[in-house]
């Protein structure tokens, strides 16, 4: 719950107080990508002037993983967080609730599903 607040806070700061966002605060967060039930995506989220940089990985626990990189922004018009990232040569986009951080994802190959915040052991 504390992480949720920090993550949302970082994104909020990036929009409202750019100078504070420049401090490059970081937090780690993981989601389970349902519809591909076992896939976990974890990002180190670093606040930038008005967006956040995402650097992390996607993994099916016990199997090989891929690096993942992208960005997240607070969509003040839609009232949610827009995320875009690439992993394993595939592009992904997602929209998540700014409070719960749960939402939906889809990728460039036509797959889609839900994103659920999870605690991934070790991260």
């Amino acid at each position: 719950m504390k992480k949720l607040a920090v993550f949302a806070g970082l994104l909020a700061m990036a929009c409202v107080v750019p100078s504070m966002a420049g401090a490059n605060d970081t937090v780690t967060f993981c989601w389970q990508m349902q519809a591909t039930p076992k896939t976990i995506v974890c990002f180190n989220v670093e606040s930038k002037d008005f967006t956040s940089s995402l650097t992390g990985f996607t993994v099916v626990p016990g199997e090989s993983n891929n690096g993942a990189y992208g960005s997240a922004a607070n969509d003040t018009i839609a009232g949610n967080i827009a995320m875009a990232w690439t992993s394993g040569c595939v592009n992904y986009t997602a929209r998540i609730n700014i409070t719960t951080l749960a939402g939906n994802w889809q990728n460039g190959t036509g797959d889609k599903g839900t994103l659920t915040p999870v605690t991934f052991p070790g991260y």
Partner: protein
Amino acid sequence: MVRATRERLLLLLSQGIRTNWIVSSAKLNRMAKEDKMTKKLAAAVLAMALVSAVPCLSYAGGIGVFCWTLAPYDNILCFDVDVKGFAMKLTGTDKMPDTSIDGAYGAVVFDNTAGVIVMDWTSGGINYTGRIDPITLTDGYWLDSNGYEGGLFFLGSGHQSLKSLVK
């Protein structure tokens, strides 16, 4: 000078994984210029750093420039490598032979299951993924979103490796 650098590196390695991050990019650059042995040591430092990046790190910062060639096309891929918690951020260039240079960006993590370093990046609108040996940083392969593939060969770290960008 070379001996002193080597001893410093060995001391850093012996002090534990966290202290690997103390090695600055400037030091890596200087080491890469000295001789092949220090070049290998620099590679070993990065490898140790990547392996130790899981699960988390207390330090975030740049560890220098690292370059690879993408066989058989002879592209030269150079990244500034920045520690971002459990992963590293890649920001650099993809130089096509005799043509142009594209910006390149991505991420690198250590794959515990396969025991390899995994690099994922985008350049020129194409997504790539690569696997390299954690010790040599070479003997790897890459493939892209268009179905092309080939070998990844480590060119070195620091300014010495950047010389490969100059014709």
